[in-house]
């Protein structure tokens, strides 16, 4: 059986099914990260003292990662725009760059974690590090998830471009929605954890 409304909008919702599905998924993601941000606020206002993020964490490396993730968001949306302009080669280039940025982000994060462990700073060390590792760890898992999805769309999944170009373009658009959300979470994480 064919999956309905993969290309054209469903008359009652006004959007194709995958788009509504991904937005509903992102709504649940907002609550997931929202619960962790809420926990952060509770822990911070409930503690007698709270360290400045920049006194424990490396804000310079995090600024670099912010630039990397924002750049990946731009290349992601450019990959979708390339498909809309029927330029498959550019799509491959921009999607490839998005995946590369994701790997750079993870490599920097791994380096950061490794440095912390080297200084015997673990999630069990104090409340700040506990919430830091929990939120950035969960965010990192989302980056890994994005790498899987984007790599599939860059590699084997891109065969669909030859048979169903509009459906493939929609797939890239909704993968982009997810990827931009991952960027969006980091936009808040960066100042909250590293700079305040």
């Amino acid at each position, binding site marked *: 059986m064919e999956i309905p409304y993969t290309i054209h909008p469903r008359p009652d919702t006004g959007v194709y099914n995958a788009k509504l599905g991904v937005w*509903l998924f992102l709504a649940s993601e907002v609550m997931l990260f929202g*619960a962790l941000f809420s926990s952060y606020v509770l822990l911070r206002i409930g503690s007698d003292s709270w360290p400045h993020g920049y006194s424990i964490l490396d804000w310079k490396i995090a600024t670099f990662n912010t630039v990397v993730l924002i750049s990946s968001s*731009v290349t992601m949306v450019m990959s979708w725009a390339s498909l809309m302009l029927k330029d498959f080669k550019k799509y491959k280039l921009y999607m490839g760059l998005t995946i590369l940025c994701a790997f750079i982000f993870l490599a920097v994060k791994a380096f950061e974690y490794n440095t912390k462990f080297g200084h015997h700073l673990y999630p069990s060390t104090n409340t700040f590090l506990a919430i830091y590792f929990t939120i950035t760890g969960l965010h990192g898992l989302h980056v890994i998830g994005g790498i899987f999805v984007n790599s599939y769309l860059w590699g084997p999944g891109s065969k669909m471009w030859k048979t169903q170009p509009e459906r493939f373009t929609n797939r890239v658009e909704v993968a982009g929605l997810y990827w931009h959300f991952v960027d969006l979470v980091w936009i808040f994480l960066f100042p909250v954890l590293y700079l305040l």
Partner: protein
Amino acid sequence: MDASSPEAIKKQVRSYIVVFVALMGLTIVTVAVSTFHLSVAAAVIIALAVAIVKASLVAGVFMHLISEKKLIYATLALTAIFFIVLMILPTSHQLDPIVQ
């Protein structure tokens, strides 16, 4: 002009570049403000205000929320309400007269 026409997409691409530059500029602002060593309250307000502007640019332009369908707006409005409740919960004890 049809939103999916090549001209419209090329116009969108230009807006993506503008937003990219704005996001980079706002990242510099975020870092620069943190070096001023303001009071915690002022630093939090400024950092969150800049983050909200950046998030709005990403959601509005990259995620195409500027021109989305009503159902998506309704879904996000409901999400926003629950998110606000989540953010108020940790501070709600201060509204409790017994604690006061």
